[in-house]
């Protein structure tokens, strides 16, 4: 698994956006977590300590539109995969001048390589068929090979993760 192989460090810093609080949930500070995938760019998951996701982004230094590859990766990480809807993925191009002088000059020097493409995945709170409010959660426990995205009521904790419960069912603790 590689993450930053093809993504220059000079650009990573200019695209970082720490800070903020969990909007309409707990008002606690947002944590930015980097995760790895088979794709060459960088992933950032912005979530509160309870795991409620504000936005997930994928950034790649490329000419092409990485939305399809991002969608497939997110589907593999989501339970169920249908959680990743086409219209919740939004593309942004970063040309350089809007990223500060360092990034602008770096991208001007490497123009042949193309600009920076960012794909955002934002799932707004919604109501399930039973009328309960649902929000997007992420579980980043070390035991998972990748993040697990799922929806739950906003009062839920990350231990509602279907990945964790599936592992518990599949591999029950051995008796000694």
């Amino acid at each position: 698994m590689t993450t930053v192989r093809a993504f220059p460090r000079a650009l990573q810093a200019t695209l970082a956006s720490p800070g903020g609080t969990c909007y309409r949930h707990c008002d606690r500070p947002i944590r930015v977590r980097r995760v790895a995938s088979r794709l060459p760019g960088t992933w950032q998951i912005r979530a509160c300590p309870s795991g409620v996701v504000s936005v997930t982004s994928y950034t790649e230094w490329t000419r092409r539109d990485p939305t399809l590859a991002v969608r497939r990766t997110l589907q593999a990480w989501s339970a169920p995969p249908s959680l990743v809807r086409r219209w919740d993925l939004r593309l942004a191009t970063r040309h350089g001048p809007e990223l500060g002088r360092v990034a602008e000059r770096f991208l001007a020097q490497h123009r042949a390589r193309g600009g920076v493409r960012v794909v955002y995945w934002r799932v707004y709170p919604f109501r399930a068929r039973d009328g309960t409010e649902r929000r997007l959660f992420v579980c980043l426990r070390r035991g998972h090979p990748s993040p697990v995205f799922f929806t739950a009521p906003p009062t839920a904790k990350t231990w509602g993760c279907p990945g964790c419960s599936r592992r518990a069912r599949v591999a029950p603790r051995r008796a000694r």
Partner: protein
Amino acid sequence: MRGSSTSPRPQRLTIVLAPWCPHCVPLSVRNGERLAQRLGIPLRILDIDRRAQEVIADRMVRRYGDWSPDYLIPQVFLEWPDGRTEHVLTGFSERVPRTAQAWRDLLASDWFRALPKGGRR
């Protein structure tokens, strides 16, 4: 995104936005006004909540900008007399202060300095 002092002056600045979006109003409108004033060109606002403007905005974003079925706003474009349309900026979905920073960086950029200007600084 390209611009040089040898180019003719740009013709118009266009911002695709929605009035309820905090990245757009007042942040991008104010900065768009500042940018247009410094370049001495008119600013056009395309409100995606108004059907007639939405049609133009969709076409512009699809052709020159960052198109997605429910695309990000604001998106800023610079139009040139030779028919070129240059995508300049898309809002940062992370946070409004990040979009504000992008506007500050854009107005202080080498790219902006190199643009031929016709208005008051």
